[in-house]
């Protein structure tokens, strides 16, 4: 497994610093993590075999910097900050990928700055709304530990899932792990509370990059019907459904996801 290095990039005119994890060589790929926070997994490690992968911590979720969340008040601030981040990293053209909450941010950024995005990958993104498939932040913020496992995964015993979701040994370490998890949920939820339907539908037509939409067929957190919804709303999208997979394809279907995403990005 590669060890990403960290780089701190000032954005919003210096009012905020975003900490970015960087690993790999090749053309740049910007990956925006979910409401669960930054986690270097086998999927990212595989991508870094072919690309220079940049993974920013959402403001407030970088280790030791919880109060950076004060730098963004809403989604507009957030998109502006990520727009600045592209400049700060010197990325004129980039492959952009986001998962869940990160998928919403990726779609917003692609709509905000369409010409900078070469290709877009949205993995079970939030951001659209159907009356017949309601979901709110409570779907992941109002759950206890067991309910979160049930909501997120098709197979809770999958080794990647177990590795990701098992707190570290020791009472204090486990408590701090939990603090980080809850805080990360709080930071990401700040800009989308209470329902992540913040007008993406009015902006999504601006996205010109070829887009791959990936969804787990067994996603209990965000209804898979939204895969088709994104597919319809995007000008140039391909939709892939992954079998035996919940809301976390990078963990539950790492090999399959790596193959599909790899082919799409290489084409």
């Amino acid at each position: 497994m590669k060890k990403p290095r960290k780089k701190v990039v000032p954005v919003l005119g210096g009012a905020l610093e975003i900490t970015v994890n960087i690993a790999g060589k090749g053309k740049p790929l910007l990956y925006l993590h979910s409401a669960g926070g930054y986690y270097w997994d086998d999927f990212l490690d595989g991508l870094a075999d072919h690309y220079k992968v940049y993974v920013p911590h959402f403001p407030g979720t970088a280790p030791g910097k919880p109060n950076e969340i004060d730098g963004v008040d809403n989604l507009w601030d957030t998109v502006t900050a990520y727009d600045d981040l592209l400049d700060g990293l010197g990325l004129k053209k980039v492959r952009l990928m986001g998962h869940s909450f990160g998928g919403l941010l990726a779609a917003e950024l692609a709509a905000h700055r369409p010409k900078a995005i070469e290709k877009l990958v949205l993995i079970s993104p939030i951001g659209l709304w159907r009356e017949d498939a309601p979901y709110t932040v409570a779907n992941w913020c109002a759950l206890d530990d067991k309910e979160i496992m049930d909501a997120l995964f098709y197979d809770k015993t999958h080794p990647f899932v177990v590795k990701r979701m098992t707190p570290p040994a020791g009472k204090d370490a486990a408590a701090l792990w939990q603090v980080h998890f809850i805080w990360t949920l709080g930071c990401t939820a700040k800009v989308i509370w209470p329902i992540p339907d913040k007008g993406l539908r009015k902006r999504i037509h601006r996205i010109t990059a070829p887009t791959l939409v990936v969804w787990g067929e067994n996603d209990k957190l965000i209804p898979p019907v939204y895969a088709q919804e994104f597919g319809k709303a995007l000008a140039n999208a391909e939709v892939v459904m992954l079998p035996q997979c919940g809301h976390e394809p990078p963990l539950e279907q790492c090999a399959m996801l790596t193959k599909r995403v790899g082919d799409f990005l290489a084409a």
Partner: protein
Amino acid sequence: MKIACFHLMPYRDLPADFEKKYKSAWFTLPFDQVADRFKVSQYYNQTLDELIHAANSGFDGVCTNEHHQNAYGFMVNPNMMGAVLARATRGKDTAIIQMGETAVFLNPPIRVAEEYAMLDSISEGRLVAGFPVGLGGDFAYSYGMAPMEQRGRYVEAHDLIKKAWIANDTFVWNGKYYQLPMVNIWPKPVQRPHPPIWVPGNASPSTWDFVLKHDYSYCFLTYFGAKGAEHMVNGYWQRAEELGRDRNPYRMGFLVPVGVSDTDEKAAAEYGAAAEYFFHKGLHLPEQFLAPPGHMTHSSLTHLLTKRPFPPFEELKKLHYPDFNARDFVVCGSAKTVTERLLHIIKTLRVGHLMILPQFGSLSHERTMANIERIGKEVLPHLRDMWDNEGWDDHWWPKHTSVQKRAAA
């Protein structure tokens, strides 16, 4: 010493197996499946009767409070209750203590400035203006605002309300959360510059600092009894000293569920089931509902999860009346026992504003009325002169509560 009667207005007849059948008594509990609307109608009236009875039985004030979407206590608008109480106690010295209307639940929050001014007018200057931060779940789930905004909105709403009370002219408010082009409320409060302000809290040091900085009175609302509260309350008094505030006991309020019977044994029979109902059913509330992610600051959350100063609510289900009574979660017994235990709490915690909860859980209207009467006759007279020898003034009690003063005005 000032003693007020507090009421939560709970649903008193939840089914016996309710906590096994439903995830929570809060936020998601379906009204029509567990509640009888005619009973609810009766509860509101009984609650008002109980508080009025307290005002007639020697209590110095009556307290209402605000919660949403639950069976634990659903005075969704305490000012509606307060208005009835203000009118019903006209001609008396009873303080109308709103603990209170929660400004961050309203937009714009000057609605609180207006309604409190109305209550101060109806009560002819007997209002205590409570400024609760509000429960995290109420703010985030019932009222749909991002948990991380609650504290910022609270501070801004407070500043705006106070300015609305005090300003002589129409002003512009350009805040982070609220923007108003013309602030000029009608009416203004009777009490000048504004009614006394009490802030209820749950031992959060950031709230202490807020209270002490503004020179308000703090009310510690805990479910976990006076014994567990001691080190936290000491923390408050220590902080007061650090910030140059005196040890005036009226800076401190404390809430206790109380039940008075002929004997301690009889108290177990009369209040035991109601106490268990309160802790097992009323507080049937998953932690993640109470404090949604982002509600607590990073340091408070770290403190909570690494130090665990309070037990999780689930732990309460393992305890029973003898535990609750032994740990002062409730203070029940003969009038003599109750008096001694309350005196001990008042002294240990330096409480100037004692708030008594004479109705809790499933306690019936009849028993509550009798309880109020006995507390008034057999307990309060022994507590009242508690701080007289130290000679403190209560700067946080309504200035116009004396009937003579009002008549003179």
